[in-house]
């Protein structure tokens, strides 16, 4: 037994529907709003109890509106659980908390289509993955090919993917296919420490490690569940697509570390805020500290957009080289880029009144529905694309955002399949080298920086992604569009 631990009790849930479960405020002293968990009964029963402890802690934070919510892929983390969503009203003392965003600010997903089919790619899969592995550095402390001085890196932090495009790393049309057009306004690099700039400036164009990956995937015709949305997103039967998952690297991690420290210093003494977990350190959104963090966090968001933009450029280079055709003629077009670790100001109707709220999504994806002006015009009739990474063994999903998400979850849905097993246990249970051989036999070629890292990401360490997606679909917080199956994977 660890010498510091908490005992958790399972809440008595009030059933709202088959996939919505409520924890009343009577569960824990200090809860200002109830908790809502969006998941099937099976998922709710299997979730580790620390998830409920953490999400009910979130419900105690000042200014929280309506509910603290947990998505079906929820698992315990620090501060908020992963899969946690909460909105705070700045006019009512609402806070901003780095623990509601995560250290990896704007960790997110990008999806690219091709006009290639399985027959075209299968003979080249090893060469493609090996080439991608060379061009997109992955692993511990890796630096990228994009050399920037501190001043140039400040520009990256303030203008995001736009900076990368200006340097020739991408196509103009990539920007309108990125959340916030790849450049979150209001980012202010003067609010970021020299340490964060120093730590991040060499890391643009790198994947990172852990659950970060780059994958070549296949669309089986029977895995298209919504023809209209699939067509709008440019998805075709038998198509090959490319999906990758990464964030703001050491830059975002340092911003999180710096501001947690700052918030811990002022939270109780200056703002008289009591919290149940140090990782929920926060400050009123409308305070100098809250505003500084918001402007710094936006720099993390932008660095991550730039990171994924440069990686896309490298993917286009790799495919072009191996397939001996230009990226344009291969149809390497972006479907979309979504963030799943952010806080943003968004407008929602609360008790008949339109309010600007600080929406925190930690391991949760924005999922705006049809007609929302924030969705690019060419997707607006079907809703925002939502990209969900599964485990490297089981498959990933493309969903569409819904009105139901806007009404129930501040326009949010799940972000992945969600872990069920600790990394240490997975490493003990699975042999990375053998796993790679088994996957090879099943037609999945994986190139990884480490065997231990592979074992940590084994399929059984995660929930069943299909069950998670079904729960989100039934709850109406996103709609199934297409499932992708892995063919090749660069594992960070």
């Amino acid at each position: 037994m660890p010498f510091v631990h908490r005992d958790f009790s399972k809440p008595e849930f009030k059933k709202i529907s088959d996939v919505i479960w409520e924890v009343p405020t009577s569960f824990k002293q200090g809860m200002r709003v109830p908790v809502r968990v969006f998941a099937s009964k099976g998922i709710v029963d299997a979730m580790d109890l620390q998830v409920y402890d953490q999400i009910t802690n979130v419900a105690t934070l000042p200014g929280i509106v309506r509910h603290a919510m947990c998505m079906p892929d929820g698992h315990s983390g620090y501060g908020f659980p992963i899969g946690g969503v909460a909105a705070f009203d700045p006019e009512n003392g609402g806070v901003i908390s780095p623990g509601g965003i995560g250290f990896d600010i704007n960790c997110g997903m990008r999806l690219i289509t091709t006009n290639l089919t399985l027959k075209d790619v299968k003979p080249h899969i090893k060469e493609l993955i090996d080439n991608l592995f060379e061009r997109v550095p992955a692993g511990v402390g890796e630096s990228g090919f994009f050399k920037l001085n501190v001043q140039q890196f400040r520009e990256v932090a303030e203008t995001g993917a736009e900076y990368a495009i200006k340097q020739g790393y991408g196509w103009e049309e990539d920007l309108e296919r990125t959340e916030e057009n790849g450049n979150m306004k209001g980012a202010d690099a003067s609010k970021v420490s020299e340490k964060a700039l120093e730590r991040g400036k060499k890391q643009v164009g790198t994947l990172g490690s852990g659950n970060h990956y780059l994958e070549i995937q296949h669309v089986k015709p029977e895995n298209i569940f919504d023809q209209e949305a699939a067509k709008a997103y440019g998805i075709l039967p038998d198509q090959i697509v490319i999906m990758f998952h990464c964030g703001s690297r050491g830059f975002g991690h340092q911003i999180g570390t710096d501001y947690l420290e700052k918030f811990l210093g002022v939270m109780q003494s200056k703002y008289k805020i009591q919290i149940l977990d140090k990782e929920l350190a926060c400050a009123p959104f409308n305070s100098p500290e809250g505003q500084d963090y918001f402007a710094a966090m936006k720099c993390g968001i932008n660095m991550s957009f730039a990171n994924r933009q440069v990686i896309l450029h490298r993917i286009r280079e790799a495919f072009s080289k191996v397939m001996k055709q230009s990226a344009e003629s291969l149809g390497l077009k972006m479907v979309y880029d979504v963030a799943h670790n952010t806080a943003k100001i968004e407008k929602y109707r609360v008790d008949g009144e339109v309010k600007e709220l600080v929406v925190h999504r930690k391991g949760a994806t924005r999922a705006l529905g049809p007609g929302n002006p924030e969705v690019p015009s060419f997707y607006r009739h079907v809703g925002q694309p939502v990209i969900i990474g599964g485990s490297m063994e089981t498959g990933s999903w493309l969903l569409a955002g819904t009105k139901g998400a806007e009404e129930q979850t501040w326009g949010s849905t799940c972000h992945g399949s969600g872990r069920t097993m600790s990394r240490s246990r997975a490493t003990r249970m699975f042999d990375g080298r053998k796993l790679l051989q088994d996957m090879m036999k099943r037609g999945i070629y994986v190139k990884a920086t480490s065997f231990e890292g592979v074992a940590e990401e084994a399929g059984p360490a995660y929930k069943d992604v299909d069950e998670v997606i079904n729960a989100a679909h039934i709850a109406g917080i996103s709609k199934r569009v297409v499932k992708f199956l892995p063919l090749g994977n660069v594992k960070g």
Partner: protein
Amino acid sequence: MPYKFIEDIAVADVAFEVTGKTLEELFESAALATTNVMIRNLESIKPKVKKTVKIQASDVENLLHKFLSEIVFLKDAKRLVFISYKLKIDEKKNSLEAVLYGDKLDRNKQIHIVDVKAVTWHLFKVEKTQKGWRAQVILDI
């Protein structure tokens, strides 16, 4: 080993418990544990590069948190990992001076496992025991 990894208190991250007869021993072991999350064969890190670090904190927990965060920072900013630590801790002033010896990250020499993003405050604790000191740390992966 004066540190052990704990299996089931952090699902997505890595937790460890560390002990030391003195604060210096505790801090050195915690730094080695953090490095061991990233690099399997610590003996592959040679003490080729020297780095001096000075930290001032508000209490002993804050001091360990800042020290480990510095180890994580140097891994990205300078691509350095360390094997030997000469530490001098002033318990009353909550300050430390450390001389760290290590080498550049190099996958050809070291077996890399997984990157550490940050030192979390989740269930973070430093406490005095009858035998010396112990601490619990959860790292974000």
